[in-house]
C-alpha cells in the first residue's frame, strides 16, 4: 500500500464523520427545540444559495441569461425542464457571447 492510499483512507473516514456527525449530535437531543428546528429547515435554501451566488458573481452575460431563463422555467416547470432549458440557453449563448 502506497502512502497515498492511507492519506485517501484517512480523508474518506474524515468525510464519513462529517456525513454522519450532524445526525449523531442532533439525535442525542430528546426533543428538537423550535429554534433549532427552524434553523434545520433553513439549511437547504441557505446551503444551495451559497453554491449559486458566488458563481453568479464571477460569471458573464451568457451564464446570467441561462440562469434567468432557468429561474423563470422553474416557476412553472419541474427541476429537469428548468435544467434542460438553462443548459440549452447556456450552450447557445456561449456561441455568441464572451
Amino acid at each position, binding site marked *: 500500500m502506497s502512502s497515498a492510499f492511507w492519506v485517501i483512507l484517512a480523508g474518506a473516514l474524515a*468525510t464519513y464523520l462529517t456525513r454522519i456527525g450532524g445526525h449523531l449530535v442532533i439525535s442525542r437531543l430528546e426533543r428538537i427545540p423550535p429554534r433549532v428546528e427552524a434553523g434545520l429547515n433553513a439549511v437547504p435554501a441557505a446551503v444551495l444559495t451559497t453554491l449559486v451566488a458566488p458563481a453568479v458573481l464571477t*460569471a458573464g452575460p451568457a451564464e446570467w441569461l441561462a440562469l434567468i431563463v432557468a429561474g423563470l422555467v422553474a416557476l412553472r416547470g419541474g427541476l429537469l425542464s428548468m435544467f434542460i432549458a438553462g443548459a440549452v440557453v447556456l450552450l447557445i449563448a456561449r456561441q455568441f457571447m464572451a
Partner: protein
Amino acid sequence: MAGQAADSRSSTSKSSMSEFWHGARFGLPVCIAVSPFGLLFGTLAVENGLSVLEAVFMSAFVFGGASQMVGIELFGQKVAPWMIALSIFAVNFRHVLYSAAIGRYLAGWPLARQAFAFFLLTDAQYALAESQIQSGRKLTFARYMGAAVTSYLTWVATTVIGAIFGKLIPDTSAIGVDFLLPIYFLGLVMDFRKRPLWLPVVAVSAVASILAYRFVGSPWHVLLGALAGVALAVILPPSRSGIGAAPAQAVENRA
C-alpha cells in the same frame, strides 16, 4: 423504529423497484452535471501523480468532488499527509449541516441502511432528499438509493474514464459543462421557495457567501454563507418560521 422498519420491508419489491427508478430519474440531472467533473478529477488526479487505482479509490471512498480536487492539488505539492486529510475534512465539513437536517427523515430506517445512506450524502443528494420531503412524498430507502447509487456509479465511472483517457479530452467549456452545476443548484433553491423565511434566508446566504468567497476564500464560503442563513432562521421568532403553527411537513413525513 422497529415498526417502521417492518413497514418498509413489507413493501413489495415491485414498488421498491419503481421507487428506485423514480429516484434515479430525479437524480438524472446530477449524473449529467457531475460527469464532466468526474472526468476532470480523474484527469487531474493522474496529472498530479496519483495512479489510476488511487484516483478511483479516492472517488469511491471519499465521494466528494470539491474535497477530492483540493486533495489532489495538495498531493501535487508535497504537503504533509495529515494536512491533506485535514483539508479534505475542512472542505467536507458542511456535510455536518446536511446530516443534522436529514437525519430526522431517515430515523425510521434500519441502522445499516441509515449508515449507508449517510455515506452517500453529497450536496446534491441532500438537496434531492429535502426536495422529496418538501413535495410531501415519503422518502423511502429505495427512492433515496435510486438517486444516490446512480450518481455514485456515474462519479466512479467517469473518474475511471478521466484517469485513463484524460489527455484525450478537449476543452469542454465551449459547450458549457462547467456551469451546469450552478444552474442545477438554482433549480433546487427554487424548489424550496414555499418554505417559511425562504426569501430572507436566500438573501442573507447569498450576501454572506459572496463576502466569504471574496474575503475568506473557497470552500469556506459554503459553510459561512449557510451558517448566516441558518442563524437568521434561528434568531427570528419561531412563529415566523412556521414552527408550531403548521408542522404539515413533519406530519406528512411520519405518515
